[in-house]
């Protein structure tokens, strides 16, 4: 290969927070998706849910290609979490702020990917803040401080390409990829 660097990035987080939407918003290739008709409470919000993985690619700098993997959100698919996390150099954790307990939701992914994140980097994207503004960013930083973890937190609308790229930028800044 030439001077191209490829880096694996994971989009994980709450069911319905927008992982599939985010990857579709920025991918330069036709994304691979594994959506299935939802039969549980997900169906009240959206028709389908990810059961395998999402895959897309985006070039951020000349020579740096991000390979984007989206996990299923629901806990019963944690077998996929383990498979997908292998070799990842960064984690984007998306949290749906309109659910009853977003901070508890966040803890599921921070706990599950703890070792992976400790060895790489993470950024937290808070979504659907137009539906629910609380908890606010301060509450997230407060929560991370209590856990003695430091990750950038930002509110995003993952339907917007710029917002998703901003998440990736801050993830890349918190780590030198070479």
């Amino acid at each position, binding site marked *: 290969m030439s001077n191209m660097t490829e880096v694996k990035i994971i989009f994980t987080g709450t069911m319905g927070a927008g992982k599939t939407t985010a990857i579709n918003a920025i991918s330069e290739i036709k994304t*691979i998706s*594994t959506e299935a008709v939802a*039969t549980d409470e997900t169906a009240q919000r959206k028709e389908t849910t990810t*059961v395998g993985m999402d895959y897309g690619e985006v070039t951020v700098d000349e020579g740096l290609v991000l390979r984007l993997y989206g996990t299923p959100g629901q806990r019963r698919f944690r077998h996929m979490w383990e498979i997908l996390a292998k070799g990842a150099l960064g984690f984007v954790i998306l949290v749906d702020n309109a659910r009853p307990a977003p901070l508890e939701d966040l803890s599921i992914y921070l706990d599950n990917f703890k070792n992976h994140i400790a060895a790489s980097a993470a950024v937290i994207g808070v979504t659907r803040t137009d539906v629910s503004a609380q908890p606010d960013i301060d509450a997230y930083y407060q929560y991370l401080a209590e856990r003695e973890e430091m990750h950038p937190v930002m509110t995003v609308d993952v339907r917007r390409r710029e917002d998703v790229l901003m998440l990736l930028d801050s993830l890349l800044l918190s780590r030198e990829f070479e």
Partner: protein
Amino acid sequence: MNISDGASPVEKLKAAQEKQQVEKALQRLLDMCAGATGALVATADGFVVARVFKQDIAEKSLAAITSSVMSLAEALVNETGQGPCQNLIVEGQEGHVVSLRINHTRVLTAMATRNTRLGMLLSAAKVCAEQLASTLGEK
């Protein structure tokens, strides 16, 4: 968590009825293929609909993995231009596993001992999936 959790009484009744129909069909599959050790129907999003097994299995995990691998097999076949996916066959050292889609929202997984002829398992599973497709409809 179960497919009928949090559902209305009518939905619960429907789920119970479906479970019964599916169990019967799975039992026929096991009768048809002597080496078959078990079979399960899952929703496409990974919940158990019904199962018949000769030994204990972690049915919830199996249902979730069934939906994941089926979706990935379908992505693989489509991506390589070989679609649509008709079935998924995995040969393990200790036995065979096959998965087939019944309809838009239901997936079948069946397994057999390694001495079983793969063709036997596959054809029994296909018959079962076709029967269930006509009983349950195309939903």
